[in-house]
């Protein structure tokens, strides 16, 4: 069996939380947006491109989670064969994962609802496109906060650098 330091193992949990919960939120959000878009496209073929745009919006949370997870895996030594993390840095890594994971979950779900609603508004009234994008982009901020804190924790928690 491969010998893994406790800190590295904790970082692995952090990476799982980061992509797991962010991916969950992103998937739920994207599912909602796509369900609304399919309904819109069924009635109006011209909605395809706009439906894709709104369905793609909640993808970003999964990207943030994926990026943080990769960073944790690389800097904890699980990928790339570097030195393992000390235990305290491993505990910080769980905080890193929770930060982007839970922020991504809430943000993705919120964005999915807003995007689905926007698709419905646009298919009813074409002029709603710009306003729909603005409203759908609002829940992105929570994921950005989570991502920022995750990066700061990695920098000042002894994981990066």
């Amino acid at each position, binding site marked *: 069996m491969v010998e893994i330091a406790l800190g590295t193992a904790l970082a692995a949990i952090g990476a799982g939380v980061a992509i797991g919960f962010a991916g969950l939120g992103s998937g*739920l959000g994207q599912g909602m947006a796509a369900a609304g878009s399919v309904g*819109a496209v069924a009635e109006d073929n011209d909605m395809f491109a706009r439906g894709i745009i709104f369905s793609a919006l909640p993808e970003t949370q999964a990207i943030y989670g994926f990026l943080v997870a990769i960073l944790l895996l690389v800097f904890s030594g699980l990928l790339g064969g570097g030195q393992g993390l000390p235990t305290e840095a491993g505990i910080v890594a769980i905080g890193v994962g929770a930060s982007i994971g839970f922020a991504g979950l809430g943000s993705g779900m919120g964005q999915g609802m807003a995007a689905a609603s926007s698709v419905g508004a646009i298919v009813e009234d074409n002029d709603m496109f710009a306003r729909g994008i603005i409203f759908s982009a609002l829940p992105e901020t929570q994921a950005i906060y989570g991502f920022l804190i995750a990066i700061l924790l990695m920098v000042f928690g002894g994981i990066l650098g």
Partner: protein
Amino acid sequence: MADEIATLISSVGLTQETFLVFCILAILIVGAVVVIITSRPILDIYPYLNPSARVRARKGRLFDEKQISEIVETNDVEEVENYLKGIPEYADVLDDYPLDKALDVERANTYDFVARLAPKDIKDPFVVMSKKTDIDNIKSLLTAKEVGLSAEETKELLIPCGSLYDDLESLADAESVTDVITSLDNTEYATALEDALPQYEDTKMILPLESALDKYYLGKLLRSTDVPSDENKQILYSYVGTQVDVANLKLIIRAKEDGLDYDAISPYILEEGYQLREWKLKDLMESPDVTNVVSGLEGTKYANALSDAIPVYNETGSVAVFEKALDTYAADYAKSLSAKKPLGIGPIIGYLSQKESEIKNLKIIARAKREADFPNSKIMEMLI
């Protein structure tokens, strides 16, 4: 720091592996709680996302005020028909049927469409509403047989939609009203019709049969809404209940205009109304005249809508003003309900109600355009 953590872990009697297992378990438990809490609203709205988008797409294609004005400004019914042929929603049905029948077909298609796409939890009332076409067809068949129309003339009256259409079309050459009713004994309408048959045989008027069908429909519609356990079902119950109350009120007002008393009206009224319960309906049916019916509604949500129509009624003497006021109230109420749950039942109710109003308005315009020199301003007043 690492030593302190290691000491802390060992001081509580855990190995590093056990500590890891505890960490994983804690994350799993927290994760499970978060997922359960957050997935609840998702599960509530998810079934409505696709239907909402579809009905909103169709709602966006309904006529706006400018288009309705343009139709009203047309010179005759042919121009109305030509205008509608330029609208994709109506073009297909107008290719196959004359204007009035095309509008009936479009309405039936709308109810079928909504009944098909409504989520399972709220599907039943919309399925019942889609059966209105069958009821209208049965009424047409009964009317045709009462006045002795030929099989071809009878078929012309039927709307070519609904689950019973083929059966009803084959009854077009039935000899009499009684034959039609006997032939329908394997349908859900058999009991209602057979119960009213003796009254028809006494009076030789089909009104009791038509009223029995209406009462059956409204009763089934009201019972099709479950106990309103969530906001979507509460909104649906209000919508359906208001339709039942409005139908009861129209019947009572018209009966009072004809001077009928409680005993004559009560068999046709659905006692279990929504806001107008049995005792209130009894009061209204016992009112001496139309004005007293309206004043008897004081304290209910229908009072304002009908009170405003009293001056016009006093001027014209026609109860049609009350019927229009009730239709307008029902449409406005449905519009207010449609704004309550944008990711739920709201858009479905909004579309259905507005589409129904649009078709009613088109029928009003078509009827007015068939009459010579009917003023456009008068048509605008008649619209819902």
